[in-house]
C-alpha cells in the first residue's frame, strides 16, 4: 500500500507543479507557480459555472414544457456527458499514462510488484477522471436539488455513485486505446495508423451522438423520446438515473456492480498482459541496414520547420489534441455547404435564422481556429533536448517562427477550405467573401503567436509523459482561455450593442474586429522579434 501511494504520489507531482512550488529556492518561481495554481482553480470553477448554467438551462426548458417530473434528465444527461468526456480524454491517455509511459524502465526496475505498478497507473487515470466527473456532475446535482424535488435517497446515492461514474468509460477507452496501439504497432508508420483510426473514431462517435441530439431536440414530445436518446448516447445513464433520482436501490446497486465488475476485468486483463503489452508498444521497428544516399539540403529555417513537422507527426496525441478543432471546422463548413443555409438554420434552431448564420459565419470559422494551437506546448515539448535549440547557430526568431509555421501549415488550408465552403453556401458579397478568409486567418495567426509567447513564459521541461504538456499544462490552458476570450469578447460587444439598440453594421463590426486582430498579430510578432532571444536564453 505504501508503495502504491509512493508511485501515485510521484505521478501526481509530475502532473502538477505543486512540488516545484514548495521546494524551489527561487521565491519568484514559487509565487508564479502558486499564482498559476490559483488561476487553474479559477478556470475549473468557471468551467463548473458553465456546467451549472447548462444544467440550469436544461432544467428551465423542462420546466417550460411542464416536465417537472422529468427533471431527473438533468443529472442523467450530465452523467452521460461526464462519461463521454472521460471516454474521449482517456483514449489518448492509454498510451503514455497507462502503458508505454516514459519512465517505464525505471519504474519496472524497482523492487515493487508489477500489480502495484499497474494499480498506480490505473489509480492515476481514475483520480483524474473523478476530478473531471466532479466538475461536470456537482453543478448538475445542485440544479437537481434546486429544481427537481429530489428524494432523500438522492442525497446518499448521488455522492456515492459519483465515484463509480468514470469506471466503465475508463475501461471502454482503455480497451479502445490499447486496441488502436496494438493494431498500429504492426505497421511501419504506426503513428499514421493511430491517427487515422482515432480521427475516424471521433468523427464516427460525433456523427452518432449528433444524430441522437437531433432526436432529443424536441422536448415537446413524450419523455420516452428523451429516454431513448439518452439511452442511445450512453445506456448506463438510464440505470444511473433510475437508481439515483428515482431511489431504485436495485438499479443503483446494479450500476455500481456493473461498474466494479467491468473495471475489475480491466485490472485482471492488464495484470496478465501488462509486460507483453508494454513490450509491444515500446518496441521500435528495425529498418534494414542503412546505406547513405543523396541528402536533400535546405536553409536553417527549412531544417527547423521540417524537424518541427516531424515532431508533430511523431505524436498522435499532439496531432489529435491540436487539430481536432480545425478538422471539426472543416467538417462543419463542408456539411454547411452540403445542407444549405436554410436547413442548417432550422437544424441549429438559431434565433434570426439564415441571417444569423450569414452574419456570424466568419466568426464561427475563426472560433474553430482558436480551439487549439500547436505552439502553446511546442517549447515544453523540447523537453530534455532543449540544449540543441539553445546551442545551434540559428537566430532565435527563426527557431520560433519554425514553430509558428507548423501551426499555420495546419490552419491555413483549413481556412481556405472553410472559406470556400462558406462562400459556396452563403453566396455573399465581395467584402463578406474576403472576411470569410481574412478573419479566420487573422485569428489563426493570433492564437499561434499568443500560444508561443504563453509557452515561452510558462514552459515545463520536466515531463515524463507528453500528456502532461499537451493536454494538462498551464500554457495550454491559458492559450485556450485567451482563444475563447478572443471570440467571446467581440461577440459580447456585438450583443451589447444590439441590446442597447445602437445602430450597427455587422459587416463593418466584423471587419473592425479582423483589422484589430491583424494589428495584434503584428504587435505580437514584434514582441517575439524583440524579446525572443532573451526569452529563449532564460529557458
Amino acid at each position, binding site marked *: 500500500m505504501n508503495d502504491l501511494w509512493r508511485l501515485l504520489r510521484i505521478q501526481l507531482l509530475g502532473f502538477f507543479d505543486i512540488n516545484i512550488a514548495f521546494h524551489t529556492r*527561487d521565491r519568484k518561481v514559487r509565487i508564479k507557480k502558486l499564482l498559476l495554481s490559483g488561476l487553474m482553480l479559477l478556470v475549473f470553477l468557471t468551467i463548473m459555472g458553465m456546467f451549472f448554467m447548462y444544467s440550469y438551462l436544461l432544467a428551465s426548458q423542462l420546466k417550460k414544457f411542464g416536465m417537472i417530473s422529468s427533471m431527473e434528465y438533468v443529472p442523467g444527461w450530465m452523467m452521460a456527458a461526464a462519461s463521454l468526456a472521460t471516454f474521449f480524454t482517456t483514449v489518448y491517455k492509454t498510451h503514455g499514462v497507462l502503458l508505454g509511459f516514459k519512465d517505464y524502465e525505471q519504474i519496472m526496475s524497482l523492487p515493487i510488484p508489477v500489480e502495484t505498478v499497474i494499480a498506480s497507473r490505473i489509480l492515476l487515470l481514475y483520480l483524474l477522471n473523478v476530478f473531471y466527473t466532479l466538475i461536470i456532475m456537482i453543478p448538475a446535482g445542485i440544479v437537481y436539488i434546486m429544481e427537481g424535488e429530489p428524494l432523500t435517497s438522492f442525497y446518499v446515492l448521488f455522492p456515492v455513485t459519483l465515484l463509480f461514474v468514470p469506471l466503465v468509460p475508463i475501461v471502454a477507452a482503455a480497451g479502445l486505446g490499447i486496441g488502436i496501439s496494438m493494431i498500429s504497432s504492426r505497421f511501419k508508420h504506426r503513428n499514421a495508423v493511430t491517427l487515422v483510426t482515432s480521427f475516424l473514431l471521433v468523427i464516427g462517435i460525433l456523427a452518432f451522438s449528433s444524430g441522437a441530439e437531433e432526436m432529443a431536440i424536441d422536448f415537446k414530445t413524450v419523455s420516452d423520446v428523451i429516454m431513448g436518446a439518452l439511452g442511445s448516447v450512453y445506456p448506463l445513464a438510464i440505470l444511473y438515473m433510475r437508481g439515483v433520482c428515482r431511489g431504485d436501490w436495485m438499479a443503483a446497486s446494479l450500476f455500481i456492480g456493473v461498474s466494479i465488475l467491468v473495471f475489475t476485468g480491466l485490472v485482471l486483463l492488464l495484470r496478465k498482459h501488462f509486460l507483453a503489452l508494454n513490450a509491444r508498444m515500446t518496441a521500435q521497428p528495425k*529498418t534494414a541496414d*542503412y546505406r547513405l544516399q543523396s541528402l536533400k539540403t535546405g536553409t536553417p529555417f527549412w531544417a527547423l520547420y521540417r524537424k518541427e513537422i516531424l515532431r508533430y507527426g511523431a505524436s498522435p496525441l499532439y496531432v489529435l489534441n491540436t487539430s481536432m478543432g480545425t478538422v471539426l471546422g472543416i467538417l462543419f463548413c463542408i456539411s454547411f455547404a452540403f445542407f444549405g443555409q436554410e436547413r442548417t438554420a432550422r437544424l441549429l434552431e438559431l434565433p434570426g435564422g439564415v441571417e444569423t448564420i450569414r452574419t456570424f459565419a466568419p466568426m464561427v470559422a475563426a472560433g474553430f481556429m482558436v480551439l487549439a494551437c500547436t505552439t502553446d506546448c511546442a517549447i515544453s515539448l523540447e523537453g530534455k533536448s532543449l540544449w540543441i535549440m539553445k546551442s545551434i547557430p540559428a537566430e532565435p526568431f527563426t527557431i520560433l517562427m519554425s514553430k509558428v509555421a507548423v501551426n499555420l501549415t495546419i490552419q491555413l488550408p483549413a481556412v481556405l477550405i472553410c472559406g470556400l465552403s462558406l462562400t459556396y453556401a452563403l453566396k455573399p458579397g465581395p467584402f463578406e467573401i474576403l472576411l470569410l478568409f481574412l478573419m479566420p486567418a487573422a485569428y489563426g495567426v493570433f492564437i499561434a503567436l499568443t500560444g508561443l509567447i504563453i509557452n515561452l513564459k510558462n514552459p515545463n521541461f520536466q515531463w515524463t509523459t507528453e500528456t502532461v504538456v499537451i493536454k494538462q499544462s498551464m500554457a495550454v490552458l491559458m492559450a485556450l482561455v485567451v482563444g475563447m476570450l478572443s471570440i467571446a469578447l467581440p461577440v459580447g460587444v456585438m450583443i451589447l450593442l444590439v441590446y442597447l439598440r445602437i445602430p450597427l453594421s455587422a459587416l463593418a463590426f466584423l471587419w473592425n474586429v479582423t483589422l484589430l486582430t491583424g494589428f495584434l498579430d503584428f504587435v505580437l510578432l514584434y514582441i517575439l522579434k524583440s524579446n525572443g532571444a532573451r526569452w529563449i536564453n532564460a529557458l
Partner: protein
Amino acid sequence: MLQITNLSKTYHGGKKAVDGLSLEVKAGDIFGFIGHNGAGKTTTIKAMTGVLDFEEGEILINGTDLKKEPVLCKSMIAYIPDNPDLYEHLTGIQYLNFIGDIFRIPKSQREERIQHFSDLFELTRDLGDLISAYSHGMKQKLAIISALIHEPKLLVLDEPFVGLDPKAAFALKTLMQTLCAQGNAIFFSTHVLEVAEKLCNKIAIIQKGKLVACGGIDEVRGDQSLESLFLELIKHE
C-alpha cells in the same frame, strides 16, 4: 580560441554555481576540466556554449563576444552534453542532415563527412532508425558525429567517454588529437583522471565554482599524479 574572464553564474534561489572563473584555451590545446559532482563544470560548459545565460563575466570565442554575437560564436562551437538527449522522433540520418542544414554544410562535404565519421564509429547501418531506438552509446556516437561534421574550431564535450565502447572511445581520443593538430581546440570535462592525464596538455580543477588550479598539466601536477593532486585539493576544501 576560448577566453573566459571573471565568469559568475548564480541560479534562481541564490546558489552560486560558478564564481569569478577565468581561463584561456588556445588553438591546439586539449583542455581538461576536472571537478567532482556539483563543482560547476557543467554550468561553465553550458555558459560557454550559449545554453545557459550568465550574469557576470565575458566569454570570447575566437575573439568574438558570446553575449554580443551568439549565433556567430555558436557556429564555431560544437557541444556534446553529458547526456545526449537528441530529437528522438528523427532518424539518425535526419538528425545529421538537420545539423548539416543549420551549420550550412555544403551537400558534397556533408555526405562525405557523414559517411566517414559514421563508418568510423560503426553507426552507418543504424542511421535509418529512429533515435528513440538507439542505446545510450549509440546516441553518444551520433552526437559526436553531429559535432564533427561541421568541423568546429572549438569542440566542447561534457563527460564524452561515458557510455562509449572501448573502440569508439579510442576513435574519439584519436580524433581529438587530430583536431588539435589541425589548429582547433578541445575543452572537455571528465571524472576519469587517467584520461585527462594522458590526453590533455592543459587542465583546470574547479571546486565549489572556483578554479583552484589551472595551467599546463606538468606545471599543475608537479611531481605527483593528477589523482593525488585532485584528492589533496578536495581535502583542503
